[in-house]
């Protein structure tokens, strides 16, 4: 059953953290009431304070945010007529929109069958092929036996190494492995299958030709129930660590003809797929501008802010309107990308310790600001970053009329933060800002691996904060133990 568009005046945000707050902002601007949900282990989260109402889903951690029945129940208890899934958690689980529809609730996103089809990399790929989209040569699902190995080996013989092993249900960078020779391939097949089973409950895998040093480019699309499909330009998400995006840029900086072709391709696929609401079509772009379809993300993306900044449009607002059956509020030719935007994810992580999470209490939080700076966050002074949830503290998005101005602004904006209590990715981004390749927009998906010197930094602590430590020591000991 598919939920039909209908008017609503109260929504439930089935998510937490910054994206929940982001959704609430647009919803409240439209005059909608917002219900937040939370787990007991997350009861101090900022998104709860921003909502009009709040419902505790259960003790947590994490499992209750994934409990479809309980979320539907919360919507019904509070009288919410629609549910926005945000990103992560249940956002790409087709059972969720289906359950919403069954409960008479509007799901603010694509229909379940679209999520189901496009969520499967193999189905999406097949759809792309049928639509005439350029796709990276790949095998179908590989059988989990000798035959699967044989298919893999003959594919390798045809296209050569390196190759990518991917999980059919993979996403967010998980379930991907690069192999460089036959030995690695045969071992990788077994490992990837086991990992896929563990991560996604589905051990299906396939093999794909590896495009060396590509740029990761994605196209933002919107589709409504009136048959309109528009794109909002490109984003460059090449700077990734282990296939997880660290920094995103809009527009992607492609040659105009490549840019136009890639955007048209994305719109064509969306139309063919019967897409609805906001989504992202991802591509790999080779050094000569050749591009290959990668996958579709059937949700709002973390990095949607850069598109909003350069187009001046509110994607979540459009999502809410589309879900109410309204047409997209602008036409394709009204979409203008102006200048550049860069988003960085300021996470509570220690880059020097393999980006390991850095849970703890945010003792001090001073945000950045000034011209061309946008913040999407959900932390505050005294907030405890839990090891149970995403380590994202705040997304910093900067805008500049030129690339140079945008990079300089990013550097300045990063300096404007003061976060004490947890380690963050800020010093790592400061290294990127000062890197000559980045300044010249010269990067691809190998950037992090080929720039290990980015980790050669020293964290700077304010002198006054160090001195405060001594004051506390003098206070505790009744004398200065170092005098």
């Amino acid at each position: 059953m598919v939920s039909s568009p209908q008017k609503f005046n109260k929504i439930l945000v089935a998510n937490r953290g910054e994206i929940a707050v982001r959704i609430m902002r647009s919803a409240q601007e439209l005059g909608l009431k917002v219900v937040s949900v939370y787990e007991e282990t997350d009861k101090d989260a900022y998104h709860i304070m921003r909502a009009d109402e709040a419902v505790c889903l259960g003790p947590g951690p994490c499992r209750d945010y994934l409990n479809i029945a309980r979320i539907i129940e919360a919507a019904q208890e509070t009288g919410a007529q629609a549910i926005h899934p945000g990103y992560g958690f249940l956002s790409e689980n087709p059972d969720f929109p289906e359950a919403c529809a069954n409960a008479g609730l509007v799901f603010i996103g694509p229909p379940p069958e679209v999520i189901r089809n496009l969520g499967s990399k193999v189905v999406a790929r097949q759809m792309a092929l049928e639509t005439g989209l350029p796709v990276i040569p790949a095998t179908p699902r590989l059988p989990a036996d000798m035959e699967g190995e044989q298919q893999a080996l003959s594919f390798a013989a045809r296209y050569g190494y390196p190759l990518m092993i991917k999980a059919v249900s993979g996403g967010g960078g998980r379930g991907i492995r690069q192999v460089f020779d036959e030995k690695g391939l045969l071992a990788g097949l077994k490992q990837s299958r086991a990992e896929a089973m563990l991560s996604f409950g589905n051990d299906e895998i396939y093999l794909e030709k590896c495009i060396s040093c590509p740029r990761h480019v994605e196209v933002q699309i919107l589709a409504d129930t009136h048959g309109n499909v528009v794109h909002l330009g490109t984003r460059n998400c090449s700077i990734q660590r282990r296939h997880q995006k660290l920094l995103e840029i809009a527009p992607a900086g492609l040659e105009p003809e490549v840019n136009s072709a890639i955007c048209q391709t994305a719109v064509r696929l969306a139309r063919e797929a019967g897409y609805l609401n906001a989504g992202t079509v991802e591509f790999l772009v080779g050094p000569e501008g050749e591009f290959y379809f990668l996958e579709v993300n059937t949700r709002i993306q973390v990095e949607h802010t850069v598109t909003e900044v350069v187009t001046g449009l509110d994607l979540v607002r459009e999502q809410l309107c589309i879900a109410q059956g309204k047409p997209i509020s602008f036409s394709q030719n009204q979409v203008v990308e102006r200048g550049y935007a860069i988003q960085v994810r300021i996470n509570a992580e220690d880059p020097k310790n393999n980006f390991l999470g850095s849970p703890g209490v945010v003792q001090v939080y001073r945000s950045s600001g000034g011209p061309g700076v946008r913040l999407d966050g959900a932390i505050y002074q005294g907030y405890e970053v839990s090891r149970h949830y995403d380590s994202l503290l705040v997304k910093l998005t900067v805008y500049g009329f030129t690339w140079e101005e945008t990079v300089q602004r990013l550097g300045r904006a990063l300096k404007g933060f003061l976060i004490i209590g947890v380690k963050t990715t800020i010093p790592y981004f400061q290294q990127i800002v000062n890197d000559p390749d980045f300044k010249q927009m010269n990067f691809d998906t190998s950037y992090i691996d080929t720039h290990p010197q980015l980790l050669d930094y020293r964290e700077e602590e304010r002198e006054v904060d160090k001195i405060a430590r001594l004051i506390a020591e003098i206070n505790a000991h009744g004398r200065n133990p170092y005098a």
Partner: protein
Amino acid sequence: MTERITRDMTPSEILAKLREASGYYLCNNERDVSQSDFKSRLMPLTTVRVAPYREAVGFFSVEVSGGATVHVDLLRKQVNPFDRLRIARKAMPKTLLQTVCRGASLFGYRHYPENVIRLTVRQFAKYVDVWRVYDFLNHIPNMIPVFEEVQKAGKLLMPSICFATGEEHTDAYYVRKVKEILAVTGPEVIISIKNYAGLGTPKRLSRLVKAIRSACPDVILHYHGCNTDGNDIGRMTAAVLTGVKICDVADHGYGAVYGQAPALTLIQTLEDYGRQAVGLDMDALIQSSNLLRQELKIYEPFESPFRGHDPTVAQYKLTGGAVGSAFEQADQGGFLERMPEILQEMAKVLVELGNWWSVTPGSQIIWTTAVNNILYGRYERPSLDLKNLLLGRYGPLPFYEPENWIFEKVLEYQRTDGKKWHRILYDEGGLIKPADAHLNQERQRLQAQLDRPISDEDLVLYLLFPFDALAFFKFVARYGKTWLLPPEIWFRRGGFKTGERLSFADERGVPHSIEIISTRREGASHLTTLLVDQYYQTINVKV
């Protein structure tokens, strides 16, 4: 004021100015006053507070570095000795900054390898304009690498002769030493008479100055004396009247007991003899003391447990810089009441060991030997330093050698090979120059310990005091430049009151404040909530 000597002058210009001056100049020896009267605890911000007045006074120089200060800065004040110099330079841009260096022992207590000596002098010479250099045995070769590096750096060299009293301490001896120095350095230096313990009468000093001036008429003389016996004004007056051009003095508002005598008293005394202090602003001199009197309460806890002058120093001859710390050690060691006995023993030991100069590192040898003699029996527990002294590791003894029984007690102490003292002396005696340090290896070692790039200044501090410098660097990494705090906070006793607000400026002049919001205990945890600038922080200290 036109006669004032300033930092923009070359050493030659300064020496020319001194030669033609009809009056005399004064050096404010802040460093020695701090060391002698307040156990070297003077904090850089006190220097900064008084600096505008000192700069206006027009001293020949201000001694802000050297002696024990370098070590105590690291050990007790967590101040980078180079920062101290940078701070003083910024606060007194015109005034020459002075240091005192213990020859091959630099700012420490043992002879360093020559490459360490040269590197250290090069680094400190970036900030220090005037180098007072001495050797506690007046063994001139021990000072040559320092002399050479100071002159290479284009700084003003002030080689010293350590002065004491006794029948061996003749004018002829000291004149010979001055000539030995001049033969090495050339004439473009200032010779300093280092009367480290404030010994001799004004008459004796007058005779010595005359003897030197008669033998070396062109030499410019500086006098550095301590006021332990309360009579350094008399000695300085005599010295200036017979030809000394520069004297080390103190502020009357700060110390002036075991350190230098007060400037104003000397000026007033010499005025009566028609001698003028060149280019001095008297108002600024008085204002300096007025301000320092306010600071005194911060440093009072570091004054000697025995207050006031001690004319008996004429017997025990301990350097003024060690008097206060000797009393402190006696107090902490629980033998303060035996100090009169120990001081008598010091006098005896000094004579027995050769009647040389009881100034660092010799003063430590005399002190330790005297204390051990009193506590454990005479020469029953000789220190390693005393053994090294008798072996000639510091250089030859200048006048005579100790009696054989002392050699026997000291050199055969804890020997397991059965060797007799004369054999030990024959086999192991003599001045052995330490081998050059592996500077690159040491740099890498320190870099690995601190996990950061190492500057030459860092390396120098590490080479001088490996353990204490390392602890200091780790302290700074954790607590920052705490000398930015007012000294009264650094030496605070009894914690802070709720609502107390501490204000200070950082190196860029940006003001900061830390307010004590609350204090609470949870078992061994002591939680202090602070308002640091505009932000609340709770800091947990395990007690």
